């Protein structure tokens, strides 16, 4: 017999979905997911772009071809050359260096936007499917009303007291995308809340269990969430570019793709090539992010990906055998 405290500890571990029966170790599961994504051309494209983005962001922490503040006054608007692979901008700064440093800023914005919109979106969903009917209807009305406010307007509102900063972009994007997400996730969440398997879980225990297995933690939502979150990340990059152009995005000294676009777009009719690089970067990354969500949904869902189910079945057979050997 173990003591009660032991059991308490154990239950906590199970609650976090650690090593329970029939569960595949996370590392193996992750490996299979990545492999299945790699086998689709769309997934491969998304993975390569993501890997490049993250690698360049990390690299820019230590090294860029030129320091950001270095300007070559004599060579403003220079065409690509050996010295400046992507040319220089209006003040003679190296475009490649600024784009590399900018990828870091955009990565931070995308990650924070995903986080904020997930928190807001799931919180709103939880309210909208709450068992208390009055609260749920009030939640729906409030979300529907707030959803009407566009990102740009919200950013302008935030920029008045707080000035221009990354936080303003994240707050504006996180809020609007979070509300959108809540609206899109809600139907699947209320389906899950009413589903027989959630009832089955509830029938096995009291209210605490109802919370552990609350519809929010239900895997039924994860496919929708994967698509919505990666779309939020992609759209945040577009929003950053737009807001920076309007002057309410990143402050002028901070490198970002939107910043590079803004500085080069003024003379687009004279030096079109300079706009090409940041434009191409934004297009590639946003497309990759949108596709990433779709492939994650297809590959990380055991219902859609037969490889994951095969893995689980194989692990089920294996654990027993090793257990018997030991």
């Amino acid at each position, binding site marked *: *017999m*173990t*003591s*009660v405290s*032991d*059991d*308490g500890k*154990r*239950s906590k571990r*199970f*609650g976090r979905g650690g*090593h*329970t*029966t*029939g*569960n*595949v170790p996370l590392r193996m599961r992750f490996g299979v997911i990545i492999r299945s994504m790699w086998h689709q051309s769309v997934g491969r494209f998304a993975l390569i772009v993501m890997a490049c983005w993250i690698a360049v962001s990390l690299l820019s922490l230590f090294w860029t071809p030129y320091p950001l503040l270095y300007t070559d006054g004599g060579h403003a608007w220079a065409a690509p050359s050996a010295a400046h692979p992507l040319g220089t901008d209006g003040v003679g700064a190296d475009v490649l260096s600024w784009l590399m440093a900018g990828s870091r800023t955009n990565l931070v914005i995308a990650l924070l936007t995903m986080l904020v919109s997930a928190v807001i979106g799931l919180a709103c969903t939880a309210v909208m499917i709450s068992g208390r009917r009055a609260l749920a209807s009030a939640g729906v009305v409030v979300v529907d009303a707030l959803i009407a406010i566009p990102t740009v307007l919200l950013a302008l509102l935030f920029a008045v007291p707080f000035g221009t900063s990354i936080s303003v972009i994240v707050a504006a994007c996180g809020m609007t995308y979070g509300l959108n997400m809540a609206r899109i996730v809600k139907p699947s969440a209320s389906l899950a809340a009413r*589903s*027989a*398997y959630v*009832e*089955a*879980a509830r*029938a*096995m*225990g*009291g*209210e*605490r*269990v109802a919370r*552990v*297995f609350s519809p929010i933690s*239900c*895997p*039924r939502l*994860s496919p929708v969430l994967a698509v919505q979150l990666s779309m939020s990340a992609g759209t945040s990059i577009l929003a950053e570019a737009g807001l920076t152009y309007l002057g309410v995005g990143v402050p002028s000294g901070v490198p970002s793709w939107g910043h590079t676009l803004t500085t080069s777009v003024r003379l687009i009719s004279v030096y079109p090539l300079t706009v090409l690089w940041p434009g191409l970067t934004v297009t590639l990354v946003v497309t990759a992010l949108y596709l990433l969500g779709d492939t994650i949904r297809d590959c990380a*869902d*055991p*219902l859609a990906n037969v490889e994951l*189910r095969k*893995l*689980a*079945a*194989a*692990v*089920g*057979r294996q*654990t*027993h*055998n090793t*257990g018997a050997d030991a």
Partner: protein
Amino acid sequence: MRETNEQTATRKRGPAEASGGTVLLAARGICKSFGTRAHRVQALRDVDMDVREGECVAVIGGSGSGKTTLTRIMFGLDTADAGTVRYRGGLLAGPRSAVMRQLRLESGIVFQNPFTSLDPRWSAGRSIAEGLVVHAARSGRRHSAGGGEAIDAAVRGALAMVGLDPDEFIGRYPVDMSGGQAQRVAIARAMVAQPRIMLADEPMSAVDVSGRVQILDALTEIRRRQPHMAMVIVSHDLGVVQQLADRIVVLHDGRIEETGATGDLLANPQSAYTKQLIAAAAW
């Protein structure tokens, strides 16, 4: 309560109900209605029912007879408009009452359709372990050995009891199972924490004939291995009821039509409705 007992008086207190075992679950005067104010449907009208330790009671009746509603109320999944349910003497009052918690811990429920009652994105092992995890979280005493190995062993034991090879099924997802296999996983989930009382709500109606036999075999095996566990089975399949149940409760139009020991009631039905049910089952 009122006049409802007149046509059922002959059998209302049949021999099976009078004999043996302490009463685990007792429903008294249960009324329930559904629908809008304009279209009120009376699903249950003043129903009494007892379930005793170690017995298997079948609740039978056509669709709309109220059999599912009655058992859901008795197992705390729904609330009645009027009447009381007692579990081991304690009144089932509200979802947070101590008696309700005790009932949830000590009961196992098998739902009609395994493909909806099992989470489609969980493997069988995880679904079954869920039952134990809940217990570990709610009471430290129910299973004694420590660690994940104990859970693993319990899950494998439950799978074996319902006639499924643990190695093959522990990591399998519901989409890769037949109806009979999936429903047996659901039965294993209900059984894994060794409940005192089990409810099977039309466990075979979503499954084809060969699956039904597998489920019947699994339930028979459970009855053999856990003779002290009470079982309530809701069904309109009299052939199954005949093989499993000790006692039958016939519900019709929200009222208890008659109740009696299985063999007795099937061989010698009193009410016209029961006769009709039996005639329809015996093709």
